[in-house]
């Protein structure tokens, strides 16, 4: 299936879920962040550059949809995408365990990072550390559940095609040598 088309569908779906469903399914003030899904998907599948762009615009959208300081989530998701994009070069992104770990760590990083960014940009940070434990961590776990499910489902559509890992390269070299000339020559 066409990768940009899948990215577009995932982005639109996640935007609608973030705008409509997220406030409705909030538990004790913790609403999941659906916009981390396209960021992780693009960063894992298309690398640092596209992931960074995706992270910036999804974060900016999140900031504009909320009432906090604009740019905080854009910054955090861009950094997340940068880290995930670099990480994706050396790991097997098609493994469910890898997807779970990446989604979990990214989600915790982005929510805690967002909390710290919000605290740093506000005049008074009273109760901030307590809020990180009481709000950021539950929210990140809640977001991670949806992110893991979405990434695994997207993996079914995208399969191994176009993935950027060493494990996948080994599989691709035999059947699709024409697409990977540099790597093939390097391995020879």
């Amino acid at each position: 299936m066409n990768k940009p088309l899948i990215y577009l569908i995932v982005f639109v779906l996640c935007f609608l879920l973030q705008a409509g469903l997220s406030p409705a399914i909030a538990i004790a003030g913790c609403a999941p962040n659906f916009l981390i899904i396209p960021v992780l998907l693009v960063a894992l599948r298309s690398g640092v550059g596209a992931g960074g762009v995706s992270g910036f615009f999804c974060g900016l959208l999140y900031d504009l949809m909320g009432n906090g300081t604009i740019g905080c989530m854009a910054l955090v998701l861009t950094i997340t995408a940068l880290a995930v994009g670099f990480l994706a070069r050396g790991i097997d992104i098609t493994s469910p365990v890898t997807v779970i770990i990446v989604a979990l760590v990214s989600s915790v990083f982005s929510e805690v990072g967002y909390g710290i960014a919000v605290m740093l940009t506000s005049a008074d940070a009273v109760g901030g550390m307590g809020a990180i434990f009481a709000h950021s961590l539950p929210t990140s776990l809640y977001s991670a559940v949806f992110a893991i499910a979405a990434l695994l489902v997207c993996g079914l559509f995208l399969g191994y095609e176009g993935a950027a890992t060493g494990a996948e390269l080994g599989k691709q070299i035999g059947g699709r040598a024409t697409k990977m000339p540099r790597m093939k020559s390097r391995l020879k």
Partner: protein
Amino acid sequence: MPGLSFGSQSQNGRPSFWWIPIVLIVISVMLITLCVRLEGGGPFAVARGVVHTVTKPIESVCSAISAPFHSIGKSSNSAEVAKLEQENRQLRTLVAELEEYRQQDQRLTTMSQFSDIYGLESISGEVLSTSSGWDRTATVNRGSADGVRVGMGVMSSCGLYGMVESVTSNTCVVRLINDANASVSAMVQNSRAHGIMHGAYDGTLTLEYVPIEKAVGEGDVVITSGSGGSYPRGILIGTVRTIETDSSKLYHRITVDPIYSIDSCEEVLILTGAQSETSTVLDESLLQTVINSANTVRPGTVGVIATALLNGTTSRSKQAAEAERARQEAEKKAAEEAAAKARSNQGSSSASNNSGESQSNNSDAGNSGSEGGRTNNE
């Protein structure tokens, strides 16, 4: 580091473009700086307004779609539903609806009385949604079309609620008083000690910059001070829970318990303007009604608040009555003096007129007559 040249290819042969996120990170930091400097206004407010205008209908549609599913989950559907049971359910639903209307009516009545107490012009609104994470705000179904403007104060049926932060045509976003970025000019009612009330990320309220020489006790009532002009004076905020001394040893740092659960408020009053300058003399019977309604919200605090508020109100009512009496007496005295002066003036003028007339009759020139006229004028 391999692959870190501009547009270089990564392991799988695709260009890396690692510099794009770096540029975007710099842009993000610039955005944050600008947003903090402009306090979220200017182009940021416009962009946010556009996004909110797009997303609010989606949110409304989703909540409308999900509402029936919630009710299905709550209702008890058995396989064998008899006619009487069905009727019973319908009646229960009706009773629940009526009870909801009754409670709503009670809240709205209290709010309108509350508005009357403070002599405020206001419009009522319904809370559509609240966010209680890092950002404690509420969306209310009143917007610029209803006359709502940024910076207007918002009250609930029991006390202070927040301030309008942004407005679209049909909705507005209210920053709650327990938000970390919210601050209210407040005072302790008994000691009249002024300070600044701050929210916090964990939802607590803290009254700061209260001079240490001011006596503050646990359980004292905290109200708005009216300084700054954002809120009228005398709106109830909460009661003092703990008192500490801040690091400078010059001020108290007081933790305040809100009188009601701010996050669970359903109806609010948006203060569009004050009828009088700042009404501080409260009607005791109306205040009693408000306290009675607050009793349903948190019974424990009402006794303290009722006593404190009524004491304050009574003393202020007495002071006002005495001042009014003194004013009336002064006016009466001034009127009497004016009348006496007028009478004396009338008597002297008639006398001088008589003498002038006699002098002018007696003299050839009108000199004496003109003097008399001058006397009369004097």
